[in-house]
């Protein structure tokens, strides 16, 4: 069975889809199906590891979102199921995130160690690309 590393970068794309993040869900399902899956959260997706995310309360007209996503719980659930979930340490630090705020069981990895992490897997499935906008030039 191939060892697969799934990389997630973009976050909070599909809140109106409710229930979950579509890629975390997919990887959870792949695990349930027997895949040897690890997940790497980088860029804005490092926020998925933060405890206390709350997307409740959305409503449009009279229609309310009954089951908002609880992504921190989804991440915890994956970890409990034995899915290694990594996040890029520098990406978290750049975003003001500290260890105390993360769900337990998250594995931190430094940017410089990403090639090694990738080498340890047979396949790398890159699901969501972030749209980090280039710095505005002041020249």
């Amino acid at each position, binding site marked *: 069975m191939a060892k697969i590393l799934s990389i997630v970068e973009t976050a909070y794309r599909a809140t109106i889809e409710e229930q979950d993040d579509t890629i975390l869900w997919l990887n959870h399902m792949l695990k349930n199906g027997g895949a040897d899956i690890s997940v790497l959260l980088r860029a804005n997706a490092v926020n998925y590891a933060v405890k206390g995310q709350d997307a409740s309360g959305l409503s449009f007209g009279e229609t309310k979102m009954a089951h908002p996503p609880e992504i921190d719980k989804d991440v915890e659930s994956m970890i409990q199921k034995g899915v290694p979930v990594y996040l890029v340490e520098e990406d978290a630090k750049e975003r003001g995130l500290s260890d105390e705020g993360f769900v337990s069981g998250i594995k931190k990895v430094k940017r410089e160690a990403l*090639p090694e992490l990738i080498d340890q897997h047979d396949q790398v499935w890159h699901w969501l690309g972030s749209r980090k906008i280039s*710095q505005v030039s002041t020249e």
Partner: protein
Amino acid sequence: MAKYLLVESRDPFDSSDSEYFCELVEGISNRGNEVTLFLVQNGVFPLRGGSKHSGLITKLLQNSVKILADDFSLRERAIKKPLDGVEVADMGRIVDLLLEPGTKAILH
């Protein structure tokens, strides 16, 4: 040592994340792996002579990374001649590289 096919579809003007990917390419190569970087879509923009971001590509070439550029993407953007050292290829080449045994493929 493993074989890698890394495909960059984004450009540094639109996404500064391209720099992360170039660093990743370099890091994987520095670990002794055989790396091919295939540029497609707007990922070919740095190949135009005089581009502000050509340095990202030049650095990788100097680090012995094999770099290919999609012929259609170049033509679509009227980039007549990419940077020296970059080979023009077609999608058939991506397929050949993907199907080489033991190749890990990442598309960014």
